[in-house]
């Protein structure tokens, strides 16, 4: 799990870097081919909204940032899926060589093996003919420890009190085991008593609450969370930049002379949303294929449910945030104002993400976190984590969806009003208070 934390931080850095590039503008790579059947369908059946959406989709998906960004995300997903899978397949305990000078009977071999397993190491126990050969093997590294006549343990380098290396742990475990054996032998117990002492019945441990889910499920949740944050931040930025670009280039006046403001805005949101969904589908599909090939645990247990939940919240999160960013874009005058404008907007997203990733890592959802899972700005991050932890009920999930949809409708109405009033005001950055006060 700790391995995923750097990935989470990397996600934040990637988003910040991508935003900087986006704010500087991008260049399309090449002219497109003819219209696709899907584009023709959208343009024919959705009128102005369809035309605007088709243009947004086309311009967005043929941009270099979209293509390079998709490749970067795919590479990050590949790393997140493949590396844990490879680690898992090579996670058998390391081998430790233990030489014995003196009698090596079956009980001693068994005790050494058991002690090494606690580290955990797989002991390779060999009888050494002399102290000299054993010391030579120890220096050569073929042995990690040697036991001299059952009374002394020798390692190559002395062990300090704070040494927690495998060799140190092996030496301590062997010392404890051999001391116990010597004490028991000295007590002259019967074989039955000896067996009871060396194989005690373990006392059961029970918890007041259910045990945490297996770590593999947490990994799925965290990977989903990171993707959610990266993709949502990216898609919201596209909306912000798209609206600001139309305003700063003044093309919006030409557009609004023939298209209604709400149609222009809706087309933009749908077009960019479609480009976003296409990218998310490619990323998730790629992750699933890799997981299947490498036998990753991200698809086991309740992980598919986590995945579906994350995808649903990606769509809901985009639907909520896109309107906020569109309204903000209409308030800017120049592209250079975008970074300062986007920072306060990103705060609720960043807050939801950080709290969610911390909770997913710890495996414990506080009451505060459960409340966040129902608040529309933070629900896209918090609710998938609650699902991943198995702490979301179906009705709670549906309630969060309903709250998010209701808030989206409200936010869309306010944002459309701000957009309509601010988009043609040029000359300087428009203050939101002026727009809300304006009668037209």
């Amino acid at each position: 799990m700790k391995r995923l934390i750097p990935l989470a931080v990397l996600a934040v850095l990637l988003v910040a870097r991508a935003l900087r590039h986006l704010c500087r503008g991008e260049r399309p790579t090449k002219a497109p081919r003819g219209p696709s059947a899907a584009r023709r369908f959208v343009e024919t059946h959705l009128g102005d909204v369809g035309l605007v959406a088709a243009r947004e989709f086309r311009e967005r998906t043929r941009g270099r940032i979209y293509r390079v960004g998709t490749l970067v995300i795919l590479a990050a997903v590949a790393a997140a899926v493949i590396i844990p899978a490879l680690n898992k397949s090579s996670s058998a305990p390391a081998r430790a060589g233990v030489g014995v000078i003196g009698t090596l009977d079956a009980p001693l071999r068994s005790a050494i093996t058991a002690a090494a397993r606690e580290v955990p190491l797989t002991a390779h126990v060999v009888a050494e003919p002399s102290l000299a050969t054993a010391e030579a093997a120890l220096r050569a590294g073929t042995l990690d420890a040697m036991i001299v006549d059952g009374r002394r343990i020798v390692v190559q380098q002395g062990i300090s009190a704070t040494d927690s290396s495998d060799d140190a742990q092996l030496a301590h475990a062997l010392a404890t085991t051999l001391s116990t054996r010597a004490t028991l032998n000295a007590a002259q117990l019967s074989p039955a008593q000896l067996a009871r002492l060396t194989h005690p019945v373990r006392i059961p441990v029970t918890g007041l609450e259910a045990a945490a889910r297996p770590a593999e499920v947490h990994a799925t949740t965290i990977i989903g969370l990171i993707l959610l944050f990266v993709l949502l931040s990216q898609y919201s930025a596209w909306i912000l930049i798209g609206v600001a670009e139309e305003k700063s280039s003044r093309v919006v006046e030409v557009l609004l002379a023939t298209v209604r403001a709400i149609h222009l805005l809706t087309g933009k949101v749908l077009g960019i949303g479609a480009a976003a969904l296409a990218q998310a589908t490619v990323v998730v599909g790629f992750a699933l294929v890799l997981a299947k090939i490498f036998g990753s645990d991200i698809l086991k247990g309740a992980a598919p449910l986590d995945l579906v939940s994350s995808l649903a919240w990606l769509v809901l999160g985009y639907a909520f945030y896109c309107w906020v960013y569109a309204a903000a874009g209409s308030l800017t005058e120049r592209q250079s104002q975008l970074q300062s404008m986007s920072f306060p907007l990103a705060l609720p997203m960043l807050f939801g993400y950080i709290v969610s990733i911390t909770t997913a890592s710890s495996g414990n959802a506080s009451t505060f976190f459960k409340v966040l899972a129902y608040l529309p700005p933070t629900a896209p991050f918090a609710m998938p984590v609650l699902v991943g932890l198995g702490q979301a009920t179906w009705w709670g999930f549906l309630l969060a969806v309903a709250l998010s949809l209701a808030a989206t409708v409200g936010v869309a109405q306010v944002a459309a009003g701000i957009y309509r009033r601010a988009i043609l005001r040029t000359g300087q950055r428009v203050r939101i208070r002026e727009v809300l006060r304006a009668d037209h």
Partner: protein
Amino acid sequence: MSAQLEVRGLTRRYGDLTALDDLTFEVPSGQVVGFLGPNGAGKTTTMRVIFGLVEADRGEVLWNGAAIGQRERRRFGYMPEERGLYPNMLVREQVEYLGRLHGMDSQAAAAASGRWLERLGIADRATSRVDALSHGNQQRVQLAAALVHEPELIVLDEPLAGLDPTGIDAIGGVLSEQARAGSGVLFSSHQLDQVEDLCESVIIIDHGRLVASGGVDELETGGGNRLVVRVEGDREARWARQLPGVTVSEVAGGAARLVLAEGADSQQVLHAAERAGAVTEFRFERRRLSEVFREALA
């Protein structure tokens, strides 16, 4: 009656500022109409009201006698003062896209786009990004975008600003051609010489109010009679200064420009000139549009 735009009683206030004050005028089809006025007179606001970008407090805009809606506006072409194009988009795609937004199907938009780029001399830049073009060529793309759907009314805010003489001729030629084909053309400009050459009629507004309108010929021949008189030996035109009903508006190169008040007799002026010396030049002169403009705003 031919199709025409009617602006009736438009009033628009921004706080204490009155941008439009009961403004009324018409733009007939088949004519190029110049829309003149000093900076801040309300020309851009009027155009924005026509396209529904600004709501008027009072008044209405009619097309063929009926109120204008989104459907009618699709048949209009608009070129705003601050040029607006997607900088990253390719030229041909941009013009096609705006044609589609005006209701053309994709084949018709593609064909018209190609035709207009050819007509405006930028066909070789069809696959260039807009921001890679010079100012003049961007202006031509903007005009192509306004004309691609063969609009019935074309409204252009300062379409000649910043153009070299070749660009002015090209765009002026296209506007005249569109008017001959039956479209109404309304355009604003500060370059009165060009307006004089291009327009059949002009509308002059100031402080949001109509101050003069009519055919260019009518306005130039209106007002008092104008005479240019040259008298040998009197380069200062002292002979004319005491004549009743005659104002000396200018003396240049020995010739005097005289404005005759209503009822003043040009023959009496000729006799007075002959009494002063040998008359080597005596002719009537039309008002120039710049004079009409200044007098209207005075």
